[in-house]
C-alpha cells in the first residue's frame, strides 16, 4: 500500500514536473494566468455588449471553465508526453501499479486547475465587481473542486488517446474550444439547439457551472447537490473510460510493437 501511495503521489508530482510543458514561470504566467484573465474580460464584455446575461453569469462560467486549460492540456501532457519524450517504454516496463501511475498524474493537474480557477474568480472580484455572499464561498469551493476533478478525468481520456494518436494536441485544443460552446459557459443551455445541450450535459463542467451559478446567486449547497452529484458521476465515468483506454492502448502497443512509434 505504501508503494502504491508513493507511486501515486511522488510519481504524479515527478511526472507533472517533467512532462507539463508550461511549468516554467515564463510559460506558466502568460499561458495559465494571463490567458484566462483576458478570456474572462473578453466574454464578460461581449455579454455586456450583446445585452445577453448578467455579468456574474459570465464571471462564474468562465472562472470555472478556465480550469479545463489546466486539466485538459495538463492531463494530456502528463500522459501522452511520455511517448513524446521516449520514456513510455521504461515506464510501462516497470512493475508499478498502473492505476497508481495513471491516477496519480491527476493530482498535480487537479491542484493546478484549482489554482487557475481561483485566480480567475479573484480577478473577477477585483476587476469586474463579482461579489458572492460570504456564505456562498465554502459551497463554491466544493463545487469548483468537484468540477475540476471531473475535468481532470476528461483530460485522462484525451491523454490515453495520446498513447496512440498522432496529434493529440489537436484533439485537446478542439476539446477546449468545444467546451466553451457546449457546456453553458457563455450561452445558457436552453438557448442552444437540443442536440447541443444534450452533448453539453454529457461533458464535464456543464453541471458544475450550473451549480456554481446558483450558489453564487444565493442558493444553498443542498439546493444544487443533484447537479454536483451528476458532475461527480460524469467525472467518474470519464476516469474509468480513461483508465480502460490507457490499458487497452498499452496492451495494443506492446502487441504491435509500436509503443514509442508515431
Amino acid at each position, binding site marked *: 500500500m505504501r508503494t502504491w501511495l508513493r507511486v501515486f503521489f511522488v510519481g504524479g508530482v515527478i511526472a507533472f514536473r517533467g512532462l507539463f510543458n508550461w511549468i516554467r514561470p515564463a510559460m506558466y504566467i*502568460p499561458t495559465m494566468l494571463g490567458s484566462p484573465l483576458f478570456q474572462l474580460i473578453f466574454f464578460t464584455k461581449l455579454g455586456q455588449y450583446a*445585452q445577453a446575461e448578467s455579468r456574474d453569469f459570465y464571471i462564474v462560467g468562465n472562472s470555472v471553465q478556465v480550469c479545463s486549460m489546466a486539466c485538459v492540456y495538463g492531463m494530456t501532457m502528463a500522459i501522452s508526453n511520455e511517448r513524446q519524450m521516449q520514456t513510455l517504454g521504461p515506464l510501462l516496463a516497470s512493475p508499478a501499479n498502473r492505476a497508481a501511475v495513471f491516477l496519480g498524474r491527476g493530482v498535480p493537474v487537479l491542484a493546478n486547475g484549482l489554482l487557475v480557477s481561483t485566480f480567475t474568480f479573484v480577478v473577477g472580484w477585483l476587476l469586474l465587481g463579482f461579489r458572492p455572499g460570504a456564505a456562498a464561498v465554502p459551497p463554491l469551493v466544493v463545487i469548483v473542486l468537484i468540477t475540476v476533478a471531473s475535468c481532470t478525468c476528461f483530460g485522462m481520456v484525451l491523454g490515453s488517446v495520446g498513447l496512440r494518436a498522432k496529434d493529440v494536441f489537436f484533439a485537446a485544443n478542439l476539446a477546449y474550444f468545444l467546451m466553451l*460552446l457546449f457546456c453553458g459557459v457563455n450561452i445558457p443551455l436552453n438557448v442552444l439547439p437540443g442536440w447541443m445541450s444534450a452533448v453539453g450535459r454529457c461533458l464535464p463542467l456543464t453541471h458544475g457551472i450550473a451549480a456554481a451559478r446558483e450558489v453564487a446567486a444565493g442558493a444553498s449547497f443542498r439546493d444544487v447537490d443533484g447537479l454536483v452529484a451528476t458532475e461527480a458521476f460524469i467525472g467518474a465515468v470519464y476516469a474509468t473510460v480513461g483508465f480502460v483506454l490507457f490499458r487497452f492502448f498499452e496492451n495494443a502497443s506492446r502487441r504491435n510493437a509500436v509503443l514509442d512509434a508515431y
Partner: protein
Amino acid sequence: MTTVPLAGPPNRAGIVWSGFVMNMKMLGTSGFFLLTSVVQPVIFATIAFYMFQSGGRSGTLLYTALGAGMMGVWSTTLFASGGMIQWQRWQGTLELGVAAPPPMALVYLPFSLENAVTGAYALAATLVWGRIVFGVPLELAHPWLFTLALVATVVALGLMGLVLASTFVLYRYANAMANLLEYPVWIASGLIFSTAILPVWTRPISWVLPPYWGVLALRRAALGGDVWGPLGMVILLGAASLAISTVTFRVFEHLARDRATLSLT
C-alpha cells in the same frame, strides 16, 4: 582555374515568392493551423451568434461574422508569427535563415505575410458558416472597397506579425506570449464588440493596432460608411510595422548573436 562569380544583389521578389509558397505548403499541412484558421473562428462565431441572438442587441449578425473572422485572422497571424521563429529554432534552421545574405526581415517577411493570408481563411469560414447556419445576410454595401480593405488589412496584420516575430528572436518563450496576446488584441481592437464599452484609457492602445482600423474598414465597406479613413490608417500602420520590424530584426539579431542565444531553446 575556374573563378566563382560573386553573388549579385538578392532577388527580393524571388525571396518573397519562394518564402511565401514554402510557408503556404507548411501551414497547409498543419492540423494546428486548420484548427486556428478554420475551426476555432467558427466555434467563436457560433458562441457570439448565440450570445447576440439571446441578447437584446439587434441587427448585428454580419457585424459579428466579420468580427469573428477577424479574430481568426489575428489568431493565425499571432501563433504563426510566434511559431515561425520558435519552430525554426527547434528544427535548427534559424541560424541558416540568420546567416543567409539577405536581411533577416526580408527572409521572414514572406512567412509573415503568408501567415496572415492563411488567417484570411478564417474570415471566409465564418462568413460561409454564418450564411449557412445562421442566415447572415451577405449583401455588401461596397464590394470593391471591401476587397481592398480585406487585402490591406491582411497585409497590415502580416506586417504587425513581423514586428512580433522579431521580438521572438530574443524571447525564447514566444508561444507563451502568443497565448497571452490573443484575447487582449481581440478586446482592444473591438473585433466583436465596440471599444466604447472599454475604459477610456484603452483608446490609444486601440488606435495603434492595425486590426482596430481593419475591422472598422471592413464593417463600413460591408454595412456602409466612410471606408477611406480607416483604410488609410491600416495602410499607415502597416507601413509603420514594416519600418519598425526592419529595425527590430536588425537590432535583435545583433543582440542574439552577441549573447550567443539565437538557438537556445
